[in-house]
């Protein structure tokens, strides 16, 4: 019986651990616990406004893509805290983990709906966003995703909006930039062909580059399981005579490409898109490898405007790292949603479908200046219009190209 006792004790310990895990997070999770204090002074400051909107959020907080989800949620949290500190109508923020998986994203969405979510920040990644937005479309819940960039995310769904560029937009942007600023180069492309994001950008880039007279001499592919060695693709690109390497991929495989290219003394111009953002803050990455790397990104952490400076300072103070584009996207999403809610006359006691209808009308009239672009406007199909900025990495920081 001693063994049985020890098992029971082990179980009890586990439950206790689970219980304190739950206990500590519930207190940190609900900033609502301090809202009564701020809402009581709010009416005096801004009139009749009171109550709080429930913002749900969904992104990968664990797994391969966790860095994007965490950054977006951290950025959004800063915006929420800023808004709540000002008084007026408050925001309750509830970020949920979707593991960048469509199935889990639907689960996360459903549990947020149980919580009483009124608008959704996210989902952060494309596959999740497509899966969850189909359910949100049925329910009439308004979603603004910080970074799910495929056109399939917004296609045929009037309640789904994007804050980031679409994939075609990035492919076109890259081709335009190359045609204008670096003509005559021989281009090699290395992309991940089991990833919607990478394949999507590559498809439009190839189409656009044919129209604009950019010569593509080599295309190499890889998958999630083969992203640790690129010597074959790099050798092929080199022997094809490519002097510009286009990488519409995330930064983890790109860091391997940069290191391997250096080892084999292959030094083309490296050109990335927004997934490359974050490479400088990657753990264990030798930033000298990224010297001269060009990328299209809507956000540069070294920009001199006040908004960026305050945001970067706050982010560094809280999370101990330089914010990337996803953090900035998350921050902007909260402000865009909050402003649109107020401008369209929504109140916290309205239901999600009522808010959704109002916001759909409001979004097309909204113009927003934020961290990730000036004069952002939205079209009826949910796509944002803003200018991509090309930056080049010099001495370990982004410099406008």
């Amino acid at each position, binding site marked *: 019986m001693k063994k*049985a006792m020890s098992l029971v004790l082990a179980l009890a310990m586990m439950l206790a651990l*689970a219980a304190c*895990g739950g206990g500590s*997070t519930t207190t940190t999770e609900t900033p609502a616990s301090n809202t009564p204090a701020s809402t009581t002074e709010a009416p005096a400051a801004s009139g009749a406004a009171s109550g709080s909107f429930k913002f749900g959020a969904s992104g990968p907080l664990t797994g391969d893509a966790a860095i994007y989800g965490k950054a977006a949620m951290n950025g959004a949290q800063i915006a929420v805290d800023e808004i709540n500190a000002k008084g007026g109508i408050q925001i309750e923020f509830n970020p949920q983990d979707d593991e960048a998986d*469509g199935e889990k994203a639907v689960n996360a969405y*459903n549990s947020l709906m*149980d919580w009483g979510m009124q608008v959704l920040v996210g989902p952060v990644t494309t596959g999740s966003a497509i*899966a969850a937005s189909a359910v949100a479309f049925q329910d009439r819940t308004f979603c603004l995703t910080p970074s799910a960039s495929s056109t399939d995310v917004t*296609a045929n769904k009037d309640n789904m909006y994007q804050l980031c560029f679409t994939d075609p937009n990035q492919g076109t942007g890259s081709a335009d930039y190359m045609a204008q600023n670096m003509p005559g180069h021989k281009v090699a492309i290395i992309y991940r062909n*089991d990833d919607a994001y990478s394949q999507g950008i590559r498809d439009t880039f190839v189409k656009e580059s044919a129209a604009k007279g950019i010569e593509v001499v080599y295309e190499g592919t890889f998958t999630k399981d083969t992203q640790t060695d690129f010597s074959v693709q790099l050798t092929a690109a080199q022997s094809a005579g490519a002097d510009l390497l286009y990488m519409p991929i995330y930064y983890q495989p790109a860091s391997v490409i940069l290191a391997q290219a250096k080892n084999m003394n292959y030094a083309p111009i490296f050109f990335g898109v927004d997934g490359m953002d974050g490479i400088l803050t990657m753990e264990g990455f030798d930033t000298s490898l990224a010297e001269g790397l060009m990328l299209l990104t809507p956000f540069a952490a070294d920009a001199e405007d006040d908004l960026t400076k305050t945001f970067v300072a706050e982010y560094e103070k809280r999370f101990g790292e330089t914010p990337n584009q996803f953090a900035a996207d998350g921050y902007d999403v909260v402000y865009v949603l909050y402003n649109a809610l107020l401008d369209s006359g929504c109140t916290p006691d309205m239901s999600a479908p009522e808010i959704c209808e109002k916001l759909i009308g409001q979004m097309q009239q909204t113009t927003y200046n934020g961290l990730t672009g000036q004069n952002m406007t939205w079209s009826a199909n949910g796509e944002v219009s803003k200018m991509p900025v090309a930056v080049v990495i010099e001495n370990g920081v982004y410099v406008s190209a």
Partner: protein
Amino acid sequence: MKNLKPHTKHNIVTFAGLALVWIIVSVMRGQGVLGRSTTGLLVPICCYVVMALSLNLTVGIMGELSLGHAGFMGIGAFSGIIASQSLLNIIPSVPLRLITAMLVGAIFAGIFGFLIGIPVLRLRGDYLAIVTLAFGEIIKELITCLLVGVDEHGLHMIFNYRGLKNVDDLGLSPTGQVIIKGAQGATGTQPIASFTAGMLLIMVTLFIILNLIYSRTGRAIMAIRDNRIAAESVGIDITKHKMIAFVMSAAMAGAAGALYGLNYSNLVAAKFDFNTSILVLVFVVLGGLGNMRGSIIAAVLLYVLPEALRGMHDYRMLIYAIVLIVVMLTTNSPVARNLFSRWFRFGKKGEEDA
């Protein structure tokens, strides 16, 4: 009841339990007691239960370790999606289309199970595990290369093995619809899966498996598992019986995959990777090899657990892992087993051979 065989009694209890759960959940849904998150979990739970049951046939009854079961689920999912989407206008009735899709998924997965079985079943033990693992990955990569669309002329399909083609090369007419976009997976699928279909699928799967186990074929399969040489010496055709179990297991995984694929409007092939195979294997091992009732319970509990832990935020996956370790230790300890068998004496009888 008295003159029934013990295993028949045991099976009747299992089916009665399933029916009871079905009725209770349906009533609760009707009353609106279940939250949205629970309702949303019902269909995936059914899919994983069927996956666990079908894998248990390979691992528990046939006694061969398969690490590529998610591959069959993937084949079923994508062939089911293609069937459902291309029959949108031909079969307007949703239940009928869902059944067709599940059948198509089962047939395709069964065919692949047969093809894969030819080389695989000549191997034993670790070798078989590694080969199935490889096949699972190959299936995933092949689906990633598929471009499929449908228009009034029928199905258009490209095998995009060099990655240089895209949906424009399908040559669809303007009214055509793309079903699978290679790496971007199946998008815009009409989700038609339902809990009723899931429960029916579980019942049918369980019925097939239990009938197989207690048939002449099933006894032959288990004889091969327990002592291959002895089985061979009494004239049992090893390859044939193994093939029957393997193909049936694959086909049922295909049906589960079709149901799963039709529950989401977006599905990528990368979902059906090694991790999913292992997840299902964990359900089977935890539920007990050869123990079908255990597989059902383990699949439900382990699928619900990470969702139930959402309140813990960052600690969610940590706690999930700890729970998994503790549960594995407990179920393996003889003391706990004694305890359990005393609690559930009725259910455990006749299943101890697992």
